[in-house]
């Protein structure tokens, strides 16, 4: 049975995340899947996107031919700037991050623990080139950390774990996980499932998740 369940698409996941971002928020989107969130902010809701390489007010992707090598996001992709944007240097940009001025950051993950520990920068493979970027600054500095990730690895292993085995990005930093199968809050009482993808019932979710889940009692 489990092979038939595809869960939400990346775009559907991005829409779920976007719906949970209040109007007026300052938001940083991690590299990769989280970047999709920007396209799904509900009509009439204004959200300001920050990119740590020095821009507040990231706009939509430029049309082909209008790209500017010197107007990029943290993933080094060309972006645009909204009216009302501002540019600043890296120390000022990370003052926004580290000073607690960004409301929400959406990040990818290798592993998230039931206590909200995040591992998303290194798989600890011997000989691999370590690279951290701004991930550790974001998880310590931003008020609320959302994780957006597939529920399992390509090999079918749970990314939600009792304890991270990969090197940590931060400890007890994640508030909520958006996977292709469920939306899960990380609470003092553990992992609380808020919503499940079509077909992903309790039994199925428990079968693909390595940490205990609590479901709403209704």
């Amino acid at each position, binding site marked *: 049975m489990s092979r038939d369940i595809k869960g939400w698409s990346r775009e559907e996941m991005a829409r779920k995340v976007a719906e949970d971002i209040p109007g007026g928020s300052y938001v940083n989107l991690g590299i990769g899947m989280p970047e999709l969130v920007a396209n799904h902010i509900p009509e009439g809701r204004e959200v300001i996107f920050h990119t740590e390489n020095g821009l507040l007010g990231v706009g939509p992707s430029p049309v082909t031919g209008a790209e500017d090598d010197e107007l990029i996001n943290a993933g080094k992709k060309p972006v645009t700037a909204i009216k009302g944007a501002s540019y600043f240097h890296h120390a000022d940009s990370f003052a926004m991050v*580290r000073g607690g001025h960004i409301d929400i950051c959406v990040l990818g993950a290798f592993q998230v623990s039931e206590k909200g520990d995040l591992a998303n920068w290194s798989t600890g493979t011997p000989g691999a080139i370590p690279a951290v970027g701004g991930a550790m600054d974001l998880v310590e500095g931003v008020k609320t950390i959302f994780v957006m990730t597939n529920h399992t690895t390509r090999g079918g292993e749970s990314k939600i774990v009792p304890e991270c085995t990969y090197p940590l990005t931060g400890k007890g930093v994640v508030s909520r996980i958006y996977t292709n199968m469920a939306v899960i809050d990380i609470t003092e009482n553990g992992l609380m499932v808020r919503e499940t993808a079509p077909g992903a019932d309790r039994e199925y979710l428990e079968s693909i998740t390595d940490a205990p889940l609590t479901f709403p009692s209704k």
Partner: protein
Amino acid sequence: MIDKIANSASEAISAVFDGATVMISGFGEAGSPVELIHALIDHGARDLTVVSNNTGNGHVGLAALIENRQVKKMICSFPRTADSVVFPELYCRGEIELELVPQGTLAERIRAGGAGIPAFYTPTSVNTPLAEGKELREFGGRSYILEYGLKADFALVKCRAADRYGNLLYNKTARNFGPVMCMAAECAIVQAEEIVGAGSIDPEAVVTPGIFVSRVVHIADPASENRLLKEGRRYP
């Protein structure tokens, strides 16, 4: 739509509570948000800790706030200037507290508060009375003391122009402490001489990005503290 513009100075400062820490921009009179301070006098919040480079002049602005007995403690670098009469009197009577901080350390502590840095080392004031009781430590054979980041519940700041996002431009040396105070305050309240449309401020020239600002009020023709002083004015 994001719109941080408040209708009036009194509305803008209405959330200030008794016991709050309030940073107030300005170096002497340049950059002092006189209208916001006067609104705070009308509002009446008491037991404030005020962080500002000076203690105000004559009987208007910050000096009037102190005279109205709303300030419990001043954190500043230069509490007496040629025209300051209110603070010195209260201080000599032991009726107001003072934490004296070197000006650069004050600016850096405010920036640190806004940048998420709880503490840093500096050589400023080593071997002086202002280093007494502070942690001393050597790096590379030189002595430094530990200073702590400063945060505030509110900042009252004057600027030249703002848009609805709270992006700010300042005027000349009236910029002084405004940008770092906006960073360090939970709620930065700004009076702007001009409100401009979003996109009117060159994104390369924005001094304070809107993320650091909570409320903006339009004060088209702000009082000159110098002129109020010359006219012998008092507030209220």
